């Protein structure tokens, strides 16, 4: 147990170190001044430049520079945006939760709808109803996410006019930023009409969330169904049947858990896709998330922002992946055996 935790922790730290090194080297690889890329500040004169260079240890060997860079990252001093001049930590602190919020709701929908439907289809495998579910999910899985989002905008926003085109919440509401999650912020906010604000936020959120959720839900359905069909063919299910257990007993005691175990690692892979999709959809809906923010940074050649943005997104993805994998390891009793073979 402690062993497993240490191993995952080591893996996590090492990966982050590699990413930090990559991010550091970007300061040198990006065009322009290394000092500017690293700090986001443009020195006015030589004296200021020298002072900054000394502060960032740029006059010392790379290793020392990197070590200093790590310290800066950890203490929250991530540099400033080239364009807005604001500290990057603040900007990312606002953009990142917006993306996570979008991805979380989409994932929730995918789990709540996808997994049960997948179980149902798997239990009814190769019947007409299963074929229908299977075809529909294959069909939805094949949509490119930006096309789906554009289609939604076209139909729901432009033709029917039932959903707003862009943004997170109407500008009429002045919602202070407390958690970064709009729904929570509304609930925490004072002196606004919470009901109206919530409904407005949900209207804004519906289309982008659905656009991402549909694809992930389809993936969940397909994974769960496949896994249930696999489990149904196992000898222990046959043996359980021959012991006269009822369909429900077999399902709840032997199928649910065994079918879920192989899907969990696949879910971890889905998280990466999900966040990518969320970032793509954001730009179309002008959702103020990290994807949108990064695209803006690219347009404006905001190198310091890109350097830290890339690090932030990959840290998020890696943290989630490792957490899911660790969780999976903890709940799967038969994995102990293979401990030496993996990681």
């Amino acid at each position, binding site marked *: 147990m402690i062993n497993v935790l240490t191993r995952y922790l080591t893996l996590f730290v090492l990966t982050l170190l590699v990413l930090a090194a990559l991010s550091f080297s970007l300061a040198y690889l990006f065009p322009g001044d290394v000092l500017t890329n690293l700090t986001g500040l443009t020195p006015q004169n030589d004296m200021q430049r020298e002072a900054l260079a000394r502060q960032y240890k740029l006059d010392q060997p790379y290793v020392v520079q990197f070590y200093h860079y790590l310290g800066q990252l950890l203490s929250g001093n991530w540099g400033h945006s080239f364009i807005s001049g604001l500290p990057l930590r603040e900007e990312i602190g606002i953009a990142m939760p917006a993306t996570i919020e979008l991805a979380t709701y989409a994932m929730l929908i995918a789990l709540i709808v996808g997994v049960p439907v997948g179980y149902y289809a798997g239990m009814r495998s190769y019947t007409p109803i299963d074929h229908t579910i299977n075809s529909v999910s294959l069909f939805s899985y094949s949509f490119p996410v930006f096309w789906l989002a554009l289609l939604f905008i076209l139909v729901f926003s432009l033709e029917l006019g039932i959903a707003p085109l862009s943004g997170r919440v109407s500008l009429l509401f002045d919602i202070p930023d407390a958690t970064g999650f709009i729904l929570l912020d509304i609930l925490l906010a004072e002196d606004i009409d919470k009901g109206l604000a919530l409904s407005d936020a949900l209207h804004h959120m519906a289309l982008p969330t659905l656009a991402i959720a549909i694809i992930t839900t389809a993936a969940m359905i397909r994974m769960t169904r496949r896994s249930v069909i696999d489990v149904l*063919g*196992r*000898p*222990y299910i*046959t*043996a*359980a*049947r*021959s*012991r*006269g*257990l*009822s369909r429900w*007993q077999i399902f709840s*005691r*032997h199928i649910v*858990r*065994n079918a879920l*175990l192989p899907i969990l690692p696949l879910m971890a892979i889905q998280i990466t896709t999900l966040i990518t999709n969320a970032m793509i959809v954001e730009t179309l809906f002008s959702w103020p998330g990290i994807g949108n923010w990064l695209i803006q940074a690219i347009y404006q050649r905001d190198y310091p922002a890109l350097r830290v943005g890339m690090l932030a997104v990959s840290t998020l993805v890696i943290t989630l992946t490792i957490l899911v994998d660790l969780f999976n390891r903890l709940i*799967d*009793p*038969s994995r102990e*055996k293979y401990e030496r073979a993996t990681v």
Partner: protein
Amino acid sequence: MALLDIKNLTLEIDTGQTRVKALDKVNLTVSSGEIRALVGESGSGKSLIVSAISGALPPQWRMTADRLSWRGESLLSMSTEQRRQVMRRDIAVVFQNPVSALDPSATLGQQLEESIPDELVRGNWFWQRGQNRRKIAIGAVHKVGIKHHRHYLSAYPHQVPTDICQKFMIAMALVSQPKLLIADDPTRGMETTTKTQVLKLFTRLNQTKSLSILFVSHDLLAIASMSHTMTVLYAGQTVESGKMKHIRKRPLHPYTKALLDSAPSFRNNLPPKSTLPTLEGTIPPLQHMPIGCRLGPRCPRAQRDCVVTPVQRRIHDHTYNCHFPLHMEKL
């Protein structure tokens, strides 16, 4: 009275272009209170019979039978629910590969406890019933000769040795107090003392609880000492069936004779250092079964008539499928 009665059970499967008969008109009965041995070489279809009886055949098999009945009621025509009840209370099966027949994600204790039918559990409240279940489970584990129940009940199948898994399968089968136990090679790979322990348990349950047993095994020695009747299978056909002592004394079918001769302990007049007589060749693959009597190419007594499948013939309660049986002059 015959508990289990199987007549002309045929199993076919499509292998690419051809359809092969893995079982060809197999007959088998198990009477109340008897231990019947089912023997045959590896690949002769013993496990298929077990699966067919327990309704565990994969869907790609096509099954036909003139009769497959449990206490006079046809298992083939009864509803799924009725069949489930029969499997739950009356017939218990120990499958050949115990490790794969156990759910890897549930503890052995959970799996044993869920095999206890509700009627056998006493108590009105769920905690009383839970305790009682636990007690029954511990009793069952002790009965099959596992001592450290505390350790094993909370273990997962991959954490325990194979013979413990085998014993758990037996415990799970016996805990529902069945009328018929079907045990497919239950002692495979066990060491001698453990094996004796299990066989003794079977014999005792047969005598005290009049449990009927269909015992599938390669182990002629074990079979001979415990079973009352025997059915011999060759390449998916029943070749001979009857009382153990009759068959041992006077096998009518050439295959049975070869089988018995190949086990040294059955021969009392064996000269020292003589080679064991066995049949030439091996069991043919399913795709290349000879027509007529499937033993034909290997049979020392084969003649032209043998290309016609021999029908089942009967002398008292001893049946055989052969055109030219042995020992007829003595009968």
